[in-house]
């Protein structure tokens, strides 16, 4: 009974809270998290418990079966993403409640936008229908654009507008692809497409449109130009949500569709191109991050770089043996989750450092290690995962990808993994070098509220812990996937 309720509650609850937060007075908006976060946590863990006990399942909305109605898929991958969202978004919400106190009342519209963003993301994780995914993308995308615009400065509005146009172009390309697939196979359900899909011109054009649209939304190099101003310029909790979760959704859709269409339809050549673009992102993003003078811009370019690793999934899973493909799946998902945790931590702790010194310039961090060790510690822990040092989640993910590359004989991706790690170290240590430099002896830094430091520290610790206990989440994530047997 409860099992039947917890699945729809994952999107119905945030929708209801979104409406409610619009109706209450601005002062009450942040307080709704004390109702919403525990309920969403219970629903998320209930879904996980049922997945582990009863196995993956299909949820038929409206009681209609797949080609006629819309189904939801509750498998390991979907549940893993839901739990990741619950953890990261909850901590960002707790952070935002304190952080937004110093901002004008109009920033309280963050709360309805947060809940609707959450509903859109949970809708995407659960979707089994390619048109429903489009609607989910629109809910999430518009909420994300609104969050970027919240600051309402000319720069923020320009960044939001750019983001909106990129997101819309991406959605429309995706929708064109969906229309072609529907016209060819007469179904929107992934299960139906998996059975029917065949290599032909229409399917390949549709796939190309879907890939291009989703690449633009994921901001893969060279389609990343909208990301740094949007993610780097937003309010800190917004930056964290967008970089950690929102860009993962379009990658997740691409991953699902790639596997649904299957090896007969997805060309190895395209997979290699996606891998090369990923490599380009790792190098270009890392280089640009190292060159930035503003702290949050550095973190935003680091996202551009980290997205690149995820795209190694496609060459490593297409046309390779089952063992290499399983390692690629495990490694990519570990990188994805570790990046979500580490990047949220990095943005939140960067926000704390900016609050402390009252400047976004990296050069103004001189001497801050003496006064704000905790903020810097979170920044460093998150950096460890991004650099891929053991025992973090970033290390485990890279290690699995490395094994997959060796097994499938594609040694050239090892260079990407190795040099990418060095570049990450370069930009993380750029911040540290500045903070450890001896500066003025007087404490001119502001002490941010404890909540801000604690939420960042929890996220950073989670990025390390997930590497130590990688076995269990990776086992859950494989449930119901094509890699489950391994």
């Amino acid at each position, binding site marked *: 009974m409860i099992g039947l309720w917890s699945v729809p509650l994952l999107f119905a609850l945030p929708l209801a809270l979104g409406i409610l937060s619009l109706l209450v007075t601005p002062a009450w908006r942040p307080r709704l998290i004390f109702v919403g976060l525990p309920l969403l946590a219970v629903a998320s863990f209930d879904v996980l418990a049922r997945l582990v006990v009863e196995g993956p399942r299909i949820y038929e909305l409206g009681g209609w079966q797949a080609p006629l109605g819309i189904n939801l898929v509750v498998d390991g991958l979907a549940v893993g993403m839901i739990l990741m969202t619950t953890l990261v978004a909850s901590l960002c919400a707790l952070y935002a409640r304190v952080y937004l106190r110093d901002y004008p009342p109009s920033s309280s519209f963050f709360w309805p936008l947060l809940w609707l963003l959450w509903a*859109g993301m949970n809708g995407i994780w659960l979707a089994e229908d390619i048109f429903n995914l489009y609607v989910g993308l629109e809910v999430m995308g518009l909420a994300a654009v609104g969050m970027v615009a919240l600051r309402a400065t000319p720069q923020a509005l320009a960044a939001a507008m750019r983001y909106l146009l990129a997101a819309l172009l991406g959605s429309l390309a995706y929708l064109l692809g969906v229309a072609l697939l529907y016209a060819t196979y007469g179904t929107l359900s992934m299960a139906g497409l998996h059975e029917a899909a065949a290599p032909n011109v229409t399917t390949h054009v549709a796939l190309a449109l879907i890939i291009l649209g989703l690449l633009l939304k994921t901001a893969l190099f060279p389609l990343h130009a909208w990301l740094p101003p949007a993610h780097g310029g937003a309010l800190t909790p917004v930056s964290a949500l967008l970089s950690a979760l929102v860009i993962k959704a379009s990658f997740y859709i691409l991953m699902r569709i790639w596997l649904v269409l299957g090896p007969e339809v997805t060309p190895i050549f395209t997979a290699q191109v996606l891998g090369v673009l990923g490599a380009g992102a790792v190098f270009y993003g890392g280089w640009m991050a190292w060159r930035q003078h503003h702290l949050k811009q550095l973190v935003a370019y680091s996202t551009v770089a980290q997205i690149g690793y995820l795209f190694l999934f496609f060459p490593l899973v297409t046309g390779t043996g089952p063992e290499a493909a399983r390692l690629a799946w495990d490694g990519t998902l570990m990188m994805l989750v570790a990046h979500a945790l580490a990047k949220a931590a990095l943005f939140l702790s960067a926000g704390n450092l900016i609050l402390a010194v009252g400047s976004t310039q990296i050069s103004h961090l001189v001497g801050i290690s003496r006064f704000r060790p905790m903020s810097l510690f979170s920044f460093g822990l998150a950096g460890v995962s991004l650099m891929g040092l053991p025992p973090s989640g970033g290390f485990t993910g890279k290690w699995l990808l490395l094994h997959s590359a060796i097994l499938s004989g594609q040694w050239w991706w090892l260079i990407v993994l190795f040099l990418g790690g060095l570049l990450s170290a370069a930009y993380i240590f750029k911040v540290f070098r500045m903070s450890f430099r001896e500066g003025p002896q007087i404490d001119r830094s502001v002490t941010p509220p404890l909540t801000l430091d604690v939420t960042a520290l929890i996220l950073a610790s989670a990025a390390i812990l997930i590497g130590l206990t990688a076995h269990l989440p990776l086992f859950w994530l494989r449930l119901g996937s094509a890699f489950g047997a391994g």
Partner: protein
Amino acid sequence: MSLRIVSAALLCLAVTGALAWAVLDRPLPEENLPERVAAAMPESGVDHPVTAVLLNFRSYDTLLEIAVLLLAVVVALALREAQPDRPEQMGLENPLLRAVMAWLLPLILIVAGFLLWAGSYQPGGAFQAGSVLAAAGVLLRLAGVTTAWLDNATLMRAGLALGLLTFLGVGLLVMIPGVPFLTYPLEYAGTLILLIELTLTLSIGLTLISLFRLTPPYADDPDEAREQQGKTP
């Protein structure tokens, strides 16, 4: 600049060509969804297949689309509140326009009501009726007619939320017997869909009116905006 235009034009041509090829070379689907819709019509509670798909078979998509509309207003509200208040300049003090409005308004309301009702057996429904309703709101605004309830922020927000809230509430309440989200019981399906459509019409209309009303009255030409700011103390 011209290089950009040429490359953009080439890109457009390439996409159009690829699309044309994809459509012309398309294999015909084996799955016949319209047939399935026709077969399930008796269980849908309405007589028009489009309404059946939008509000029963694929009602979850519609629910999320309404959330998108609400989101647009939330963003508009946030941006409007973040901007310093400017004098409202909209509305023409024209007696002729007001006289015409008196004739038009009842007609518009009747057309909206008809479209809503028609949705159950022929093309029409909440989206179309809501748009017509919004046209009435826009005309009122242009004629400079101020209504207390349109300017009441609380009432307005309640109206905006009503459609999505009802939809969500119905979706959750029907689950009590132990069926999935949005599974209407057959005997009440028609009534529930009408209830949802009725509230959606109102909310969609108010959404479009709000987007119109929340737009700052001045042109967003930066020079003009600066001039205006200089004038107001």
